[in-house]
């Protein structure tokens, strides 16, 4: 029992730290409480996150603030159409002595210490880069210099803007499935936040702004242990398990629940997806949310809070509905939560 008590105490200490982490980021990113909460959940679930949103809503600022607050080694790279996997791994240049040199690239430079890898504009990179990223996300390792490099603590953040479609490469389903969440970043809704962002000079200089974030609030080396302790410590009851399975079945077969979406034939809407990995990610994220809420049990609210971000990008729908995807999938998810009864 002594051991369990100690774990509990450690977990509640970590919870206080997680809330402080949220506050630190909230100081510089206004009006994005929900996004910050989701990113915190992803951090403690050790999951990778894809951010999506308009240009200039603060995605990059948010991620830089996160990187600073988490602490540990941080690397970033910009996706371009001519970026190749080797550019991530190797850095080829001429040495001072005039001879060609090959050094480790951005991915390898920090070695095992790499805590955050931040991929900007991921959809501008080619599929070859995506597949390298796939391996990095799935196995936390890459091969280079004839050996395998491991990154036990790495967490990948990627962002893409959804406005431009030219000269971009859609992420393959397998790569998207590796992301724990796809988070939509919208403009802050409150007038007060908008006003501050535009008129307060504090927000004009991002570098100076980020200095306000206390660096290294979390210890990236310990996050893995904490994440495991959370997954063990927060329990799911048989009722909740049945509820989760019912949600899953509902997403895969919306017609069986009698969900009605305007202008959509629900019998043929969902073609696949909602993989077992996706649902296990869902439960993982729900456990972290329960822990952040100070509970030792998962309740349906936890599932509902993370469901759109964790599951929406894993649902594959009929191509004829693809153009209206966002609206249809969110209606589908809302419908499933309306029809599946809890408890």
């Amino acid at each position, binding site marked *: 029992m002594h051991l369990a008590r100690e774990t509990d105490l450690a977990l509640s200490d970590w919870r206080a730290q997680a809330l402080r982490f949220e506050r630190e980021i909230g100081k510089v990113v206004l009006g994005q409480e929900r996004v910050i909460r989701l990113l915190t959940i992803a951090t403690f679930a050790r999951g990778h996150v894809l951010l999506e949103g308009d240009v200039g809503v603060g995605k990059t600022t948010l991620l830089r603030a996160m990187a600073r607050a988490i602490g540990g080694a941080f690397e970033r790279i910009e996706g371009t159409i001519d970026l190749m996997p080797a550019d991530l791994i190797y850095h080829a240049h001429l040495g001072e002595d005039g001879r060609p040199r090959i050094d480790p690239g951005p991915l390898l430079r920090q070695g095992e210490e790499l805590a955050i890898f931040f991929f900007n504009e991921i959809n501008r990179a080619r599929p070859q880069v995506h597949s390298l990223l796939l391996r990095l996300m799935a196995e936390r390792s890459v091969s280079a210099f004839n050996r395998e490099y491991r990154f036990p603590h790495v967490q990948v953040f990627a962002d893409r803007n959804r406005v431009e479609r030219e000269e971009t490469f859609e992420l393959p389903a397998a790569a998207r499935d590796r992301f724990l969440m796809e988070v939509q970043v919208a403009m802050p809704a409150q007038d007060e936040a908008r006003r501050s962002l535009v008129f307060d000079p504090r927000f004009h200089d991002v570098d100076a702004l980020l200095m306000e974030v206390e660096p290294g609030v979390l210890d990236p080396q310990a996050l893995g242990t904490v994440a495991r302790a959370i997954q063990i410590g927060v329990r799911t009851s*048989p009722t909740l398990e049945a509820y989760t399975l019912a949600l899953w079945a509902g997403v895969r077969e919306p017609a069986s629940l009698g969900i009605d979406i305007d202008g959509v034939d629900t019998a043929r809407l969902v073609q696949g997806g909602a993989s077992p990995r996706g649902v296990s990610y869902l439960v993982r994220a729900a456990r972290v949310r329960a822990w952040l809420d100070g509970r030792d*049990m*998962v309740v*349906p*609210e936890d599932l*509902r809070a993370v469901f759109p971000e964790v599951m929406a990008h894993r649902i594959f729908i009929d191509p004829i509905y693809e153009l209206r995807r966002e609206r249809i999938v969110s209606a589908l998810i809302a419908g499933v*939560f309306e029809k599946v*009864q809890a*408890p």
Partner: protein
Amino acid sequence: MRGLARLVLLLALLTSPAHAQLRGIDLYAPRPFGYVIGDVVTLTAEIALDAPFVLDPASLPAPRALDYWLDLRGVTLTDEGVADGVRRYTLDLVYQTFYAPLEPRRMSLPGLTLTAVAEGRRVPVEVPPWSFLMSPLREIVATGAGPAMALRPDIAPAPIPTGTTLRRLLAALAVALLAFLVLAWQMGWGPFGRRAARPFARAARAVPTSLGTTADPSPAAYGGALRALHRAFDATAGKGVFAEDLPDFFRAYPAFHAAEAEVRRLFNASRRAFFGGDMDGARRELPPEALVALSRRLRAVERGSA
């Protein structure tokens, strides 16, 4: 009294000591003339006795035919109780005469002898005879033509106007029925309890059914009762209501604010029961009786009578 003739006999004035206990008999009789065959004559005698004496009911005459022309139809003795040491009785005698006189003729109703008893002593009580005049119904020899005495048709009854009353009665019944239906609708009685807008009425029925009659319902029964209430919340809000949604729920349905503390207890208990795996803790937090009470309270809130 309706009697026109009044005979007062003060038998107590007689010297016989045996009559000392009879205070008096007042005989009230109707008019003594103008009777025809088949008429009914009612005599009423008021008898006053000294207190310990009572009339012996066995001495009352039985209704019967007294003569070929006279029937005693009814005898009713009413005890008026004791006042000032005097016990009073009212004796009603109903006679019917069938005598057919050819000309006016005096007929006589015979007297009666009753008996008063007290402490083994028996005293006779004399009700005096009474006479009256009877007349023929028709002349002996018919002077007019035709069968003058043929049976005549009955007098047609004069109808009492009831139309207005009947209409008012029907209108009142319709209003009463309508009022009852409105009340049933409002209270969610009978078939109205199942209408969609009354989920808590349904839950209030389902909760005791699920819990059963035992004092210690099984976890499944308790869980079923919790579920019934959750379904009512879901149906009221039109979507799943979780504990975190309660502030929104109370904003949307302010009437339920009155029961906010209990509702929060319900959601806490249900969280424990379903997701914390702590059914006993849930039952401690919200015992089955409290669950039934809460379901009734929510039903009352729903129909606006809380």
